[in-house]
């Protein structure tokens, strides 16, 4: 084995680690660059606010934007309350027994299931068995289940970060366990729970496979009217216009991708800013 002198090997490893880090940044920058370069010309007010025309080759993508927003809003309003309740139970009440361990194991495994499997599951259960049809609600339920493990895990992290002494003091003042959670634990964990939720929204906005069979339609000539409507959704729409429609103008494809990207990135940005804000105002 070659023995490098310590100074040199120190330098070498620094360079190596630095290059690895740059390699991570490169694809992100390139992707954003290409999408902006090719798509920026398509972004107009009309593109964002009107229906598609000429077999999607013209007009706008409003129904897809609204479709994605409605699925995501429904999904998070289902997943967040359930996830937070489960996290509270696991973190504040559950004793360390077999059942608890099985639940935790299930959560870990649920997080590892491929998203297309969730899509098939949603098709089988929500669309067919519960007869919800291909609809916003079926897609939202599917996405909610997919996102539950992430929400539970981040919410548990947030609950855990509330110092144990706060709970102890509250209990020692004769405040019941539930009231302690209500008045002390939750308010202090809220920032963490919310940032987790925003990141979840960002993540599920871009998901295609889970809504493929459960919510998304090739083309719907009207805007979503109820949760039982089939809708167009940005990621699926992007897939269709890039593969299924001949003679599609390139800038519309990239423009659609840009809108999706902005949607996801802006939500991540909100989460980052929220986290910075809360960290600065963190009081313990």
């Amino acid at each position, binding site marked *: 084995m070659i023995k490098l002198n310590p100074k040199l090997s120190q330098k070498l490893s620094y360079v190596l680690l630095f290059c690895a880090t740059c390699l991570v940044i490169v694809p992100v920058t390139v992707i954003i660059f290409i999408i902006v370069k090719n798509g920026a010309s398509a972004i107009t007010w009309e593109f964002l606010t009107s229906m598609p025309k000429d077999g999607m080759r013209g007009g706008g993508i409003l129904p897809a934007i609204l479709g994605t927003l409605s699925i995501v809003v429904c999904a998070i309003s289902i997943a967040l309350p359930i996830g937070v309740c489960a996290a509270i139970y696991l973190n504040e009440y559950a004793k360390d027994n077999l059942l608890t361990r099985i639940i935790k194991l299930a959560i870990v495994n649920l997080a590892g299931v491929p998203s297309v499997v969730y899509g098939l599951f949603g098709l089988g259960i929500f669309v067919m068995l519960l007869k919800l049809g291909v609809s916003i609600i079926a897609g939202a339920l599917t996405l909610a289940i997919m996102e539950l493990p992430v929400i539970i895990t981040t919410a548990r992290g947030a609950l855990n970060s509330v*110092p144990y002494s706060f709970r102890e003091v*509250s*209990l*020692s*003042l004769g*405040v019941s366990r539930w009231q302690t959670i209500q008045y002390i634990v939750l308010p202090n964990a809220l920032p963490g729970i919310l940032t987790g939720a925003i990141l979840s929204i960002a993540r599920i906005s871009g998901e295609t496979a889970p809504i493929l069979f459960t919510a998304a339609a090739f083309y719907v000539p009207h805007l979503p009217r109820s949760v039982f409507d089939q809708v167009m959704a940005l990621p699926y729409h992007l897939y269709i216009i890039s593969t299924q429609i001949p003679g599609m103008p390139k800038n519309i494809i990239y423009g659609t991708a840009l809108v999706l990207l902005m949607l996801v990135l802006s939500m991540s940005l909100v989460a980052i800013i929220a986290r910075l804000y809360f960290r600065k105002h963190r009081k*313990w």
Partner: protein
Amino acid sequence: MEKIEIKNFNLWYTDFHALKNINMKVKEKQITAMIGPSGCGKSTLLRALNRINDTIEGVRTEGEINIGGKNIYADGIDVDSLRRNVGMVFQRPNPFPISVYNNVAFGLQVNRIESKKSVIDQTVRESLEAVLLWDDIKDKLKKSALELSLEQQQRLCIARVIAVKPQVILLDEPCSTLDPVANQRIEELMMQLKEKYTIVIVTHNMHQAARISDETAFMLLGDLIEFDKTDKIFTNPSQKQTDDYVSGRFG
């Protein structure tokens, strides 16, 4: 008058026998100190008195603790009201990250003991006066409690306990994070408080125990070795182990 009577009390953390057959009577409106080397079970015994140990998984108890004539380990005891009656002040000042006012009012508001604003205001004021903090911070009631000095925070924590009108106040090394001046001022406060409350204090500082307490318990490895008048413990203890400890001949 006895306020607390501990009878054949045992406590286990899972398999670890932390308190071994403790028997002891704490008198009303006195200061009772608990001393002993680290890990001997002082905090555990103190925390048994308001059943805050219950929140730790694997804790098991045997025996009785009677407070005001009622066994607090009996079935059907309302633990929350027990804890209001037996307040606790912790080692590190630990106010909630909310305003001074809300810290003191917390127990009253959340327990819905009181909802009239005027009564809560009055209680906050009386509690802060009782810990001699009112004059210093009456203009800062809306400020975050974390902006106070450590000593003020610890006083605030005592006020927070007093606000729910306990009869017994437990203190677990309340001065160990404070400087000597603050330490002395808290000691003076305790001397005043004992006129209204039964006080049990755990301390590492033997001088402190000697200065402020009426009776002192010496513990060792989960056993109560000796419990007597403070003077006697520090000048003429009947057990050799106590003598070794108070004279500093002990690890």
